[in-house]
C-alpha cells in the first residue's frame, strides 16, 4: 500500500499517511476552497488502510484554524476510525496550543461525539 505525503499550503494541512508505521499525521490550517476534494484521497487511503491495519494506529492532529467543511470531514474520519476500532488500537493525539484557553471546546466537541474512540489532549507551544 502506498504511503501518502501532501505538502501543506497556507490554507491546507500537511498530511502524512504511513501504512508501514501505522501513523497518520495532519498538521496545519485547513480551509481549502474545495475541502471535500482535498480530503477525498485521504478518506480513500483510510478505507484501504483499515483493510490490513497495523496493530497500533497513531493519529496526530495539529489543527488550529479550520472551516466548517473540515469539521464535517473530521466527523467522517472519526466515523471510519470508530467502525475499525476492533481491528487496531487507535491512539488519537489532539495537539493544541497551550496558550489557547478555549482549546478544550473543540477537543470536547469531538471527544464527546466519538466516545468509542480515545482522544489524548497534548499541549504544545506554538510560535
Amino acid at each position, binding site marked *: 500500500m502506498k504511503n501518502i505525503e501532501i505538502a501543506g499550503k497556507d490554507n491546507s494541512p500537511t498530511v502524512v499517511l504511513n501504512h508501514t508505521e501505522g501513523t497518520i499525521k495532519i498538521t496545519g490550517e485547513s480551509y481549502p476552497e474545495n475541502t471535500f476534494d482535498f480530503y477525498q484521497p485521504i478518506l480513500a487511503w483510510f478505507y484501504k488502510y483499515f483493510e490490513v491495519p497495523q496493530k497500533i494506529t497513531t493519529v496526530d492532529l495539529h489543527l488550529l484554524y479550520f*472551516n466548517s467543511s473540515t*469539521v*464535517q470531514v473530521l466527523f467522517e474520519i472519526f466515523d471510519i476510525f470508530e467502525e475499525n476500532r476492533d481491528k487496531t488500537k487507535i491512539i488519537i493525539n489532539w495537539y493544541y496550543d497551550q496558550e489557547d*484557553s478555549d482549546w478544550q471546546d473543540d477537543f470536547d466537541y469531538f471527544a464527546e461525539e466519538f466516545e468509542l474512540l480515545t482522544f489524548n489532549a497534548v499541549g504544545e507551544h506554538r510560535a
Partner: protein
Amino acid sequence: MSSIIYAMLDEFFDEKCMVDALFQIKGELKEKLPINRLKVIIQVTIELIQNIINHSNIYSDLKEGKREGYGNFLLIKNGITEYQIITSNPINKKQKEILQNRVNELKKLNKSELKTLLKERIRSRINSHQKGAGVGLIRIFISSVSDIKVDFQPIDDEVYMFSMEIIFR
C-alpha cells in the same frame, strides 16, 4: 475611536484573496490578542469570506471548480478591546428566504443547543451528501459572544444585499 484592521470593499473574493486577508489579519493581531480571541476572529473570517465566495449572487466560475464572489468585508477595532466584522454580498430572493429562516431559528438557540444542531446538520449532510446546510452559519453563531446583526436590503424585486455584523469583545 475606531480603526480599520482590514478592508476589502466592492471586490471579488477568491481563495487567494481569503488567504491574503487571513495572513494580514493574523499579522496585525497576533501580538495584540490572546490566541483564543484571535482564533475566533480568524475562524469567523474564514466562514464569512467562504460564504461570499460560494454564495454571492454575483460571481464568476474559475478553474478547477473554484469560484470568485462579489462582496464586502471589513474588520474594525472599536476602542481598546472590541473588534467588529461587517460583511455583505448580494443574494437572490430564494436565498434570502432560506437565510432569513435559518437566522431566525439560530437566534432562538443557546450555545449548547447550537452545538447540538451543528452535529445534527453535519450528520444530515454526511448522510445525504448535501452541501450548504448552514453549518458555517451555525459555527459563526457558536463563535459569537454577542448578538449578530443580520440585514437584507432590497436592491430590486429579485436581489437583496445580505449583511452580517458581528462584535467580538
